[in-house]
């Protein structure tokens, strides 16, 4: 097969040139470098980011942080299809200490704790020793859309592209846990990967879910992603997949599963990744009168993918508007479009359902009647009846933004 991992030679040379010149301003203004940046046009801080092809097994990616990598999927990718190509699936790491190659003969996934039999599973055990399972699911960072929150919040400044959909192939976590035999008093299952903290005493990244959730037959351990092995930066060789839940839980380079008979008291559950326990996680800056709870599920979102902010659209002629949506922890029931600032909504046509946790294509025709500035708004309602909110969401962590998106166009 063709290798999609080969560096684009021109791009890498540009990267070297840009990096070599410490007088970066001149390079920034050169046409060569300008092609390789994106401007999010978000007020309140630097809105330009470089685009790079320098990362292994990755194509064009927006660099939010060089190391450890935070690589955002360029938004135009989402117009091409409902499954995100592996080489443009977004990348997010907590710590920089993870391997860049593996001795796969020695790789083991341990299942331990409150089980009847401790397991040490080889990759061969996972690939050939258990029933296979496949599911489509969107991986989305908890902070996807953080720059849209006002006032701005510290953290990874993912614009909209810290989300990607893939068909995951692997084995059910339930089958693995059943092989180990979960003890009757077990309550939680905690997951960790090979990734380590850099500094002594810093908390290793771990997340946990309930035993019942872990055994629901959908939570899985994936070694395949759209029919290929996972790119290293997406968690090769195996990654935990929790369909419908935020990707914070989707532990990369998974090598440790610990069954607990007590609440998980690790930092990433007790302190990190927590959101106000109020509707939409939405509070006012300065408010303190709420409880914090761990983030859990995705929430409905929808995007226009073929029209960008600032585009010109024809007057009096039909134009296609299309995009993607996902329901969060359930399917997409409907996607509606508004041309009048949200006063009235019209249904769009949904594309093929390729799995309730995946992206769903939607499409419609619009004819703009009046000249001048217009807005297109798109709203997903999921199969549980939850619709995207029409008000701005804010919380201290910058988590779970899913306000209705508005695209500003000019009819001419």
């Amino acid at each position, binding site marked *: 097969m063709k290798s999609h991992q080969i560096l684009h030679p021109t791009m890498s040379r540009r*990267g070297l040139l840009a990096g070599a010149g410490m007088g970066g301003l001149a390079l920034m203004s050169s046409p060569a470098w300008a092609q390789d940046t994106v401007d999010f046009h978000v007020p309140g801080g630097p809105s330009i980011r470089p685009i790079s092809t320098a990362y292994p*097994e990755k194509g064009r990616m927006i660099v939010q942080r060089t190391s450890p990598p935070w690589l955002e999927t360029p938004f135009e990718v989402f117009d091409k299809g409902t499954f995100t190509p592996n080489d443009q699936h977004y990348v997010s790491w907590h710590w920089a200490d993870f391997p860049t190659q593996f001795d796969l003969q020695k790789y083991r996934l341990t299942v331990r704790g409150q089980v009847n039999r401790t397991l040490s599973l080889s990759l061969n055990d996972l690939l*050939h020793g258990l029933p296979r399972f496949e599911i489509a699911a969107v991986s989305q960072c908890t902070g996807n859309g953080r720059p849209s929150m006002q006032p701005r919040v510290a953290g990874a400044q993912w614009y909209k592209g810290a989300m990607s959909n893939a068909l995951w192939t692997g084995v059910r976590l339930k089958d693995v846990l059943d092989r180990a035999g979960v003890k009757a008093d077990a309550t939680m299952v905690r997951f960790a990967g090979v990734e380590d903290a850099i500094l002594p005493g810093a908390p290793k990244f771990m997340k946990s879910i309930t035993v019942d959730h872990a055994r629901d037959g959908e939570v899985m351990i994936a070694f395949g992603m759209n029919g290929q092995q996972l790119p290293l930066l997406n968690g090769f060789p195996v990654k935990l997949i929790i369909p419908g839940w935020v990707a914070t839980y989707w532990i990369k380079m998974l090598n440790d599963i610990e069954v607990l008979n007590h609440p998980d008291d690790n930092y990433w559950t007790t302190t990190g990744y927590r959101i106000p326990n109020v509707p939409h996680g939405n509070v006012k800056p300065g408010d303190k009168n709420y409880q914090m709870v761990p983030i859990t599920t995705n929430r409905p979102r929808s995007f226009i993918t073929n029209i960008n902010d600032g585009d010109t659209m024809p007057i009096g002629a039909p134009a296609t508007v299309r995009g993607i949506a996902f329901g969060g922890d359930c399917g997409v029931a409907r996607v509606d479009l508004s041309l009048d600032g949200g006063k009235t909504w019209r249904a769009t046509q949904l594309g093929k359902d390729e799995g309730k946790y995946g992206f769903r294509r939607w499409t419609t025709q619009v004819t703009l009647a009046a000249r001048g500035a217009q807005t297109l708004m798109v709203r997903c309602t999921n199969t549980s009846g939850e619709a995207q909110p029409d008000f701005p969401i804010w919380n201290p962590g910058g988590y779970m933004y899913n306000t209705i998106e508005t695209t500003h166009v000019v009819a001419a």
Partner: protein
Amino acid sequence: MLRSLLSTAIICGTVLVSGPSFAASLDQLKSPNVDLPTSDTMFPDGPGADEINGSCLACHSADHILNQPLLTREAWQEVVNKMIKAYKAPIDPASAAKIVDYLARTKGKS
């Protein structure tokens, strides 16, 4: 000024990739062997630059901070506190104060 530094953020490493040549059936996996890009971008000169360069780049590249929005001094103080308390950054109180001053001055919001 900060933006100009972004152009230096990506220093391409040599990338060696032995990608899957067969993996469509997922009968076996083959380990990649890759080099990851690194950054030698430093923070712009000024009071506290030595402290922020010396204290913050062990765990993450400078673009982590340079790409942050403008924040209030209180918000920067919280960020630095979190790095010390939660993530065990070995920063003494005097250096931490200089780092907060640096961030409030270069990426501050009233």
